[in-house]
C-alpha cells in the first residue's frame, strides 16, 4: 500500500524504537474543525499514524511518530474545537492534554480566509501560556480571494511565530516543523506576554491569580493565569479542579464569585459574554492592523452557488436522497461482488481443507468454525471500506453539514439531531458502518440513542430473510408485505428514539448550531489515509471478537453430537470405515446440540408467538449474522447447505417452499417472525461495534436485552392478536 506521495516522503519515516539519545519532541496539532488540520497531520505523518483513545473517554486520539531531519517527532492530533470551554469531551480532552501532558509546542492551524473566527481559539491557547506556533493554512485560497495577511506584523502583535501553509498540497510544512522545533528548543523568542482584556477584567483577573497563589502545589499543576480566566467564565471543569485540588478551595470560590459579580455589575453583562467580547475585540484590532482585502470579494462565491442548489428549500431533500442513493449504490454495487469474491475465496479454502484433511471434528472446526468465522468478518470488509470512503468524501468536501441542515427538522421531531440521518441511511445497508458513522454526532446522548436504534432498520442481511418469508407465505402480496416490514423498520427506529429521548436520555437538547464550511476538494491522499485507518481499525478490533463469538456459536450448533448407533456394530465386525458415514441427519445434529437444546427448552415460551423449537434454534443462530437464519432453516429442512450466499435464489425458494408446506407455520406466524427478525438482538458484528464506539459492554448487553424483549413482545402481540382476530370473525 503505497500512500506516499511526492511531498509527504520528505517529511518522515517511521522512527525505530531504538533511537539515538535524541529525545522525542512532542508536537500537538490544534485548530477548528475544517481548518485543514487533519490534512496537515496526514501529510506529516503519512501512514505512520495510530489511532487510540484518550484514557477514560471515547474521544479518538490520533498520533504519529516520525523522524524528521535530526529529530524524533511525536505528533498528536488534538480534536478539532472552536474553543476551550468545558462543555464537550473534545475540548476538555484538548485542554487537559495541554495541561497535563505538557507538549513541547503546539501548532494551531488557522484558516487564513477566516481569521476573525480562527484566532479565537488561538487566544485561548495563549491564555494557557504554552509555546505556540500558528499555521496560516489555506493561504492559496486566501490569495485567490484577494486577502492579504501581513504575516510579520501579525506575528509581532500576537507575539507568536506564524508560517504560511497549504495543507492539502503539503506546502510550507517543512518550514512549519522547523519553526515548531525551534520554538520547542527555546531557540525562537516567543513573547511570553499575557493577554489583557481591558483594565477592569485585568484587575479581576489579577485578584483571582493572587488568591490561587496561596497553594503553590496547585499552581504548579494548573497554570494560574489560565485558570483565573476560566473561573471568571464560570467554567465547570475549572471550578471542579479548584474544589478538588486547592487547599483554600471554598474561600477562593466564594471570593471569585464576588469578584465576578462586581465585574458583571460594572459591565451590565454576563462575565462569559464580557470575556468573549474582549477576545473578539482584541482579534478585531489585530485584524484591522494586519489584514487587507485587495479587491472586493465576489458576492457569490462557488460555495454559495452550490448551496443555492443544494440548500434550495425544495431541492434540498431530493438532492440529499439522491446523494445517499448514489453512495449506497456504489457501495453495494461494488461491495457485493467483492464480498462475493471473498466469500468464494473462503469457500474454496474450506474445500481445500476438506479435501486435504481426514474428516473429523478438527476439520469441521477449521472449516465450519474458524474459516466460516473469519470469512464472515472479512466479508463485511469491502462494504465497510467503501462506505467509509463515501462518508469521508461527504465529510471532507463539506456536504455533510448541508445534509444535516436539510434533514434536521424532520429528525428533530423524533428528538434526534439532523446528523443522525446518515447512520439511519447507512443502516438500511448494514448496521456496522452506520454505528461507526454515528461518531459524527458530537453529543453523547444523541450518539447513544442513534446507535441503539439504527439496527432496527432492514439491513442487507435481513432483506433475504424477509423476502423469502414474504414470497413463501404471501404470494402475490409479497411485495406489499416486504415494503411494510421495511417501513416498519423506520417506524420502530424513530419511535424508539423518541421514547429514549423522553425517558432515559432526557435532558437539554444538544445545540444544533454548526458551521457550514466552504466546499473544498479533499486531497486524495488524505481521503485514502482516512479509509485505510478505518479499515485497519475494523479488522483489528471487530475481527478478534466476532471470530471468537462465531466459533462459540458454531460450537453451540454442533455439540454435543447425537449418539451414533452404527459405529459399534462396524467395530465389532472388524470393518474399518474410512469415513464416518453421516448416519445422523443434520437435523438431528442440530436438535441435540446446545443450541437445539435451548430451542427445545424455550419452546413453551416461543409458542406464545407461534414459534417452535426449530425457529428457536434458527433465531439463536441468527445472532451471529442474520443471513445464517436462512442457512439454518435449510439445515433443519434437510436442504444441502454449503455456505452459499443467501442471495442464491434457488436455495431461498427451496427453503421458502419447504417452510410454507410445514403445517406448523402460517402467514400469521411468518409475519410475527419477520417482525421478530427485524427487531431482535443485532448481529455480532453490530454488537461488537457498539461496544467499541460506546466504550463498555453494558451497551451491547442492554441493546441485546431490550431488543429481544421488544421483538418478542411484538411477535406475541401479532400472533395472539391475529388468533383473536380470527376467532372473532
Amino acid at each position, binding site marked *: 500500500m503505497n500512500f506516499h506521495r511526492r511531498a509527504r516522503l520528505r517529511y518522515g519515516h517511521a522512527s525505530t524504537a531504538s533511537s539515538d539519545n535524541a529525545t522525542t519532541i512532542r508536537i500537538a496539532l490544534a485548530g477548528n474543525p475544517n481548518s485543514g488540520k487533519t490534512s496537515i497531520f496526514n501529510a506529516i505523518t503519512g501512514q505512520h499514524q495510530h489511532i487510540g483513545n484518550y484514557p477514560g473517554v471515547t474521544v479518538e486520539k490520533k498520533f504519529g511518530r516520525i523522524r524528521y531531519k535530526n529529530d524524533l517527532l511525536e505528533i498528536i492530533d488534538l480534536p478539532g474545537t*472552536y*474553543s476551550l*470551554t468545558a*462543555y*464537550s469531551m473534545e475540548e476538555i480532552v484538548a485542554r487537559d492534554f495541554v495541561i497535563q501532558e505538557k507538549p513541547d509546542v503546539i501548532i494551531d492551524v488557522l484558516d487564513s*480566509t*477566516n481569521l*476573525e*473566527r480562527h484566532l*479565537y481559539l488561538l487566544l485561548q491557547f495563549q491564555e494557557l501560556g504554552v509555546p505556540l506556533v500558528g499555521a496560516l493554512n489555506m493561504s492559496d485560497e486566501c490569495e485567490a480571494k484577494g486577502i492579504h495577511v501581513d504575516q510579520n506584523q501579525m506575528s509581532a502583535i500576537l507575539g507568536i511565530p506564524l508560517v504560511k501553509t497549504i495543507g492539502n498540497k503539503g506546502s510550507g510544512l517543512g518550514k512549519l516543523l522547523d519553526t515548531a522545533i525551534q520554538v520547542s528548543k527555546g531557540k525562537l523568542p516567543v513573547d511570553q506576554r499575557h493577554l489583557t482584556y481591558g483594565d477592569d477584567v485585568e484587575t479581576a483577573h489579577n485578584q483571582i491569580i493572587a488568591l490561587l497563589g496561596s497553594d503553590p502545589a496547585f499552581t504548579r499543576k494548573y497554570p494560574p493565569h489560565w485558570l483565573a480566566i476560566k473561573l471568571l467564565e464560570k467554567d465547570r471543569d475549572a471550578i471542579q479542579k479548584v474544589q478538588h485540588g486547592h487547599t483554600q478551595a471554598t474561600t477562593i470560590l466564594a471570593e471569585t464569585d464576588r469578584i465576578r459579580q462586581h465585574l458583571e455589575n460594572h459591565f451590565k*453583562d454576563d462575565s*462569559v*459574554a464580557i470575556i*468573549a*467580547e474582549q477576545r*473578539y475585540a482584541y482579534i478585531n484590532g489585530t485584524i484591522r492592523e494586519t489584514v487587507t482585502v485587495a479587491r472586493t470579494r465576489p458576492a457569490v462565491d462557488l*460555495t454559495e452557488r452550490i*448551496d443555492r442548489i443544494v*440548500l434550495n*428549500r*425544495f431541492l*434540498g*431533500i431530493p438532492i440529499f436522497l439522491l446523494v445517499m442513493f448514489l453512495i449506497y449504490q456504489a457501495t453495494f454495487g461494488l461491495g457485493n461482488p467483492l464480498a462475493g469474491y471473498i466469500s468464494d475465496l473462503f469457500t474454496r479454502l474450506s474445500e481445500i481443507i476438506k479435501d486435504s484433511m481426514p474428516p473429523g471434528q478438527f476439520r469441521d472446526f477449521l472449516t465450519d468454525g474458524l474459516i466460516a468465522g473469519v470469512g464472515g468478518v472479512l466479508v463485511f470488509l469491502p462494504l465497510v471500506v467503501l462506505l467509509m470512503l463515501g462518508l469521508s468524501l461527504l465529510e471532507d468536501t463539506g456536504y455533510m*453539514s448541508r445534509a*444535516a*441542515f*436539510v434533514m*434536521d*427538522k*424532520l429528525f*428533530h421531531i423524533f428528538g434526534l439531531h*439532523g446528523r443522525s440521518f446518515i447512520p439511519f441511511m447507512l443502516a438500511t445497508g448494514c448496521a456496522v458502518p452506520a454505528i461507526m458513522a454515528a461518531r459524527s454526532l458530537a453529543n453523547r446522548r444523541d450518539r447513544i440513542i442513534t446507535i441503539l436504534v439504527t439496527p432496527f432498520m432492514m439491513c442487507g442481511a435481513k432483506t433475504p430473510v424477509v423476502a423469502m418469508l414474504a414470497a413463501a407465505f404471501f404470494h402475490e402480496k409479497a411485495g406489499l408485505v416486504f415494503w411494510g416490514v421495511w417501513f416498519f423498520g423506520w417506524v420502530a427506529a424513530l419511535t424508539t428514539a423518541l421514547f429514549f429521548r423522553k425517558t432515559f436520555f432526557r435532558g*437539554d*437538547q*444538544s*445545540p*444544533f*448550531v*454548526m*458551521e*457550514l*464550511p*466552504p466546499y473544498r476538494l479533499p486531497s486524495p491522499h488524505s481521503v485514502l489515509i482516512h479509509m485505510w485507518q478505518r479499515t485497519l481499525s475494523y479488522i483489528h478490533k471487530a475481527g478478534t471478537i466476532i471470530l471468537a463469538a462465531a466459533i462459540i456459536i458454531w460450537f453451540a450448533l454442533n455439540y454435543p453430537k447425537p449418539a451414533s448407533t452404527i459405529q459399534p456394530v462396524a467395530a465389532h465386525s472388524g470393518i474399518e470405515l474410512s469415513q464416518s458415514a453421516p448416519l445422523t441427519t443434520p437435523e438431528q445434529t442440530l436438535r441435540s446440540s446446545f443450541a437445539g437444546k435451548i430451542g427445545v427448552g424455550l419452546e413453551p415460551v416461543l409458542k406464545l408467538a407461534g414459534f417452535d423449537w426449530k425457529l428457536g434454534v434458527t433465531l439463536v443462530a441468527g445472532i451471529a449474522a442474520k443471513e445464517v437464519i436462512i442457512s439454518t432453516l435449510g439445515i433443519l429442512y434437510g436442504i444441502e447447505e454449503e455456505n452459499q450466499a443467501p442471495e442464491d435464489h434457488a436455495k431461498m425458494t427451496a427453503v421458502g417452499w419447504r417452510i410454507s408446506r410445514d403445517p406448523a407455520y402460517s402467514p400469521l406466524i411468518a409475519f410475527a417472525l419477520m417482525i421478530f427478525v427485524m427487531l431482535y438482538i443485532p448481529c455480532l458484528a453490530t454488537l461488537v461495534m457498539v461496544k467499541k464506539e460506546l466504550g463498555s459492554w453494558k451497551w451491547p448487553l442492554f441493546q441485546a436485552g431490550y431488543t429481544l424483549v421488544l421483538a418478542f413482545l411484538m411477535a406475541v402481540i401479532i400472533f395472539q392478536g391475529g388468533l383473536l382476530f380470527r376467532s372473532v370473525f
Partner: protein
Amino acid sequence: MKNEALNEQNLSQAQEDYLKIILDLIGSHRVARIKEIAQRKNVSMPTVSEAMRKLAQDGLINYSAHELIELTPQGEQTAHQITARHQFLRYFLQEILNIPTDTANAEACALEHHLSAETLERLILLYQFLTNCPRFDENLIEIFRQCLTAENQPDHAECHDCFVKIAFPHTLPDHHTIHIRLADLPEGQEGVIVILGIEAEKRRILIGQGFVPGATIKMERSAVGDQPFIVKLKGLQSKISPELARLIEVAVQSENQQTNMNTNETVVTPSNLAGVPTGQRFRIKKVCGEGEIWQRLIDLGFIKNEVGLVIREALLKDPIEVEIKGTRVSLRRSEARLIETEVLN
C-alpha cells in the same frame, strides 16, 4: 367657494371654466360662439350671455358683436395659466396616481381652482422629484404603478419585502423609532399610524373607521382569541379586528418597548434572529440563554454588535442559515430566538 384663487381677479370656478373653454374653442375653431360655449358647459345660452357680460366687465374678453367672443390680452394670459395648471394637475392625477381620465379631468378642474400657487409649485416639484431625482436609479413612478397594480395580490413577488416589513418589526436608521404591527403593540403603548397595509379593500375599511396615517393610536386592550383589539384613536375608543390590526404598521419610540407581547401568532419577540426575514441584515444586541447552546453561539461568533445576514431557511422554515463573522452558520429557530437583534436596511 372661493379660497385663494390663482389669479388676482378672484374668478369663480365657473368663470375659470369659461375662460378655459373659450381658449380651447378659439384654438380649435378659431372663434368662440355662445352656442358652443353653452353646449360645452351644458348650460342655457342666456346663462352664458350673463357670464360673458361679467367677464367682459373684468376686462378678460371682448363681448361685442352677437355671439362672437374674443379674449383680451389679459384674458388670454389668464386662460393660458388656468389651462396649463389644469393640464398639469390632470397629468399628475392620471400618470402618478393612476386615476382614470374622466375623474382626473373633473378633479383637476376643481383642484386647480382651490390650490394656492405655492401648493401647485410643490406638486410640480414633487413630480419632478419622482421622475428625475438623480439619487434614485429607478423610475419611482413606474415602481409606484406596480405597487398600485400589485396591491390586490399581497403575495406578489415584487411586494414581498413591503409585505414582510409589515409583518416583521424593524428599526429605522435613527435607531429610535421602531415600526411594528398594531397587533403587536403592547397594552398601554402609544404609536403613530404609518402604513395601512397593501390591500385596497381592507385599506378602505380602515380609512372609513378613522385609521389613517399620521393618527396617534393607543392600545387599550389586546385581543384574546377572536375578540377585537380595543384602541384609542384621537381620544375616542374604537374596536378593530385582529385581522385588520395585523395590517396596520405603527411607529413607536424604541425606549418604551415592552417585551411582553401577547399575540396569537408564532412567538416572535419584536427583535430576535428568528424573526429576521431571509435576505435581511441584522445587528446583534444581546445573546440570551445559558449553558452549552449559549456558549456554542458565542464560540461561533454571535456576540454583541456583530453584523450578520440571514441567507436562507430550510424547507420547513427550520433551520436557518446565517452569515456571521465571515462564516456560514446554521441554527434552529429555537436557538435563533436567543439572539436579540435589530434589523438593518
